């Protein structure tokens, strides 16, 4: 890391009488999971690099309620949603970037009806915008010429129709973007969604993440890229189970950008 991360909180910003252009919604994984924290930091490095005026909620952030809602627990979801909306509206938040497609989907689609209306984008969409606007210059760096395959997170892809942003960012790295047979709208889930991340799988003959990891590994990629901390965990497990961690890395699109450009 070249320099210390600058991560202002909403509270600090407000105390200084400032309003950030965008709120970075970190998410539970990005805050607590050791692997996902690296993704969070990569996103912050990108934001710092382009001098984005952003803030996080810090300890005022709480789960969006996604796992509760997908599990059928509307009460817990609603409690989380309503209190988050109170916080967000108190800070008069207009625009949010999330590090997780589940937070992205919930904030973007399910909060408006409850009084939380914000412009919500996923971090791969933000990076794409920054590149397109010329604010972020990226080079392939260590990934130049490498083979990368992108695993579509269900809640970014099918759930919200975003297939191109992460791919266009990856292509900027001057790499070979290899597609799995099941990709884009036809992509196969990593197995973590719908609260599966937090429970044992039901009886079957295979784990979903193994099925997906094998499909990705069949391409013999240098990197399996994704845009979701849960997909990242599932794919990493699948790669390790196949003993391919020395050949294939699992990285978030934000990490690809940050690492390639020595951020």
């Amino acid at each position, binding site marked *: 890391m070249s320099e210390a991360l600058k*991560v202002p909180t909403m509270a600090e910003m407000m105390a200084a009488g400032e309003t950030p252009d965008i709120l970075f919604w970190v998410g539970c994984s990005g805050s607590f999971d050791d692997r996902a924290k690296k993704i969070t930091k990569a996103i912050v490095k990108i934001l710092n690099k382009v001098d984005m005026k952003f803030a996080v909620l810090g300890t005022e952030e709480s789960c969006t309620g996604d796992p509760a809602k997908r599990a059928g627990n509307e*009460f*817990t979801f609603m409690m989380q949603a309503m209190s988050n909306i109170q916080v967000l509206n108190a800070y008069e938040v207009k625009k949010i970037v999330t590090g997780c497609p589940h937070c992205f989907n919930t904030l973007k689609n399910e909060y408006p009806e409850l009084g939380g209306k914000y412009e919500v984008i996923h971090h791969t969409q933000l990076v794409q915008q920054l590149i397109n606007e010329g604010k972020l210059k990226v080079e392939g760096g260590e990934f130049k010429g490498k083979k990368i395959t992108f695993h579509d997170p269900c809640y970014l892809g099918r759930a919200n129709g975003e297939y191109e942003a992460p791919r266009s960012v990856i292509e900027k790295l001057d790499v070979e973007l290899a597609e799995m047979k099941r990709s884009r709208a036809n992509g196969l*889930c990593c197995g973590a969604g719908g609260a599966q991340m937090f429970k044992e799988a*039901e009886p079957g003959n295979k784990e979903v993440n193994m099925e997906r990891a094998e499909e990705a590994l069949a391409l013999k990629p240098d990197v399996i890229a994704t845009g979701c901390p849960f997909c990242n965990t599932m794919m990493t497990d699948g790669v390790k189970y196949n003993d391919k961690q020395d050949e294939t890395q699992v990285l978030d699109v934000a990490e690809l950008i940050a690492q390639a450009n020595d951020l």
Partner: protein
Amino acid sequence: MEYIPQILFLIMLAVGFGLFAKSAMRIRRNVLLGRDIDRKDRASDRMNLMLRVALGQSKMVVRPIAGTLHIIVYAGFLLINIEVAEIIIDGLFGTHRIFAPVLGGLYTAAINFFEILGVLVIVACAIFLWRRNVMKIGRFHSTEMKGWPFKDANYILIIEIVLMCALLIMNAAEANFPDEHRAAGPFLISGLIAPVFSGMSYETLHLIERVCWWAHIAGILFFLNYLPYSKHFHIILAFPNVYFSKLTPKGQFTNLESVKKEVELMLDPNADPFAAPAEPAGEAEHQRFGAKDVQDLSWVQLMNAYSCTECGRCTSNCPANITGKKLSPRKIMMDTRDRLEEVGAIIDVNKGTFVDDGKSLLHDYITPEELWACTSCNACTEACPVNIDPLSIIIDLRRYLVMEESSMPAELAPVMSNLENNGAPWQFSPADRFNWAQEG
């Protein structure tokens, strides 16, 4: 005496359409047992979607072989049935090929076109039978396809082949009529079959032609009445089903209004905890959280169930099913339809009211094990050629399990309490949530 065939025809037509109308009304009544849901917004978007997905078959061609063959059968069904208009007029008025003299060359062209389509339909149906019975494609042989659903599919294909053959044989027989009796033809395809009947007397040929004519229209009326008891009802419901399908992003789940109200009250610092509960506004009956039985689902979800033609694209794309779990989105839809039929039958025998039979969609048809295998990935809704939404039913049933039965997989219970107490699914203190920024 000469009017007897016309009278018979009229009776057959009236009975055929009358019985179908009765069945259709029964299905409509069953669908409307569902809760209300507003799907009348964005009419032009809905119309465009219906034209593209239902009429235009845009999602069918995702699988090119099955998709192309399906379009042939579908186009054949739509276009060849134009001929039914002539059959009905001829049947009612005792005429023979009434459009032939009126349309002249155009008539010959039209029938030639129908004959070519008819042959294509026969070929496509034969390939479909081959795929189901000889190739044994996996998705046609899952557990939920055993018995009636498997036979149903074969019956439909065989009936379609028989109907097309009747049409061709009818024309082939007429091709051998002496010129003064022949109203039209010979035509392209039936002309090739015609030599089979050469040398027969006019009386025999006329008999063959009549038998095929009656078999064709009787077959069509039989098929019409078979539809409401078959998965094949999709040929009718595909259109409204796509029209009323979900237009919001696939990831967006509904918010339960009743839960929202309660939580709002909990979070309102000005709410009087000792206040008497407000008078229930209109809604006299307590509505369950989520769905236990078919009446707790919306009419769109129930229409989905009748629209399903059991193609199994949902199930073959479902990550849970692919990895051997019990969940099959197709079975969710078939179970919903079967239970709804059962509820409808109970209502029929009890003169319009439902009498609790101690059974429900949840548990008796769909087990928690199936429901908890879902990753909510939307592969099923994406795959469905007519925009059926099995995921919404899975989530509604989960809601009932969790909120009414307090039942969920053991590992999820602490996750829920962590969410409530710590604002995260794991047992971390909310105070540590921002520690990442200080770590190297």
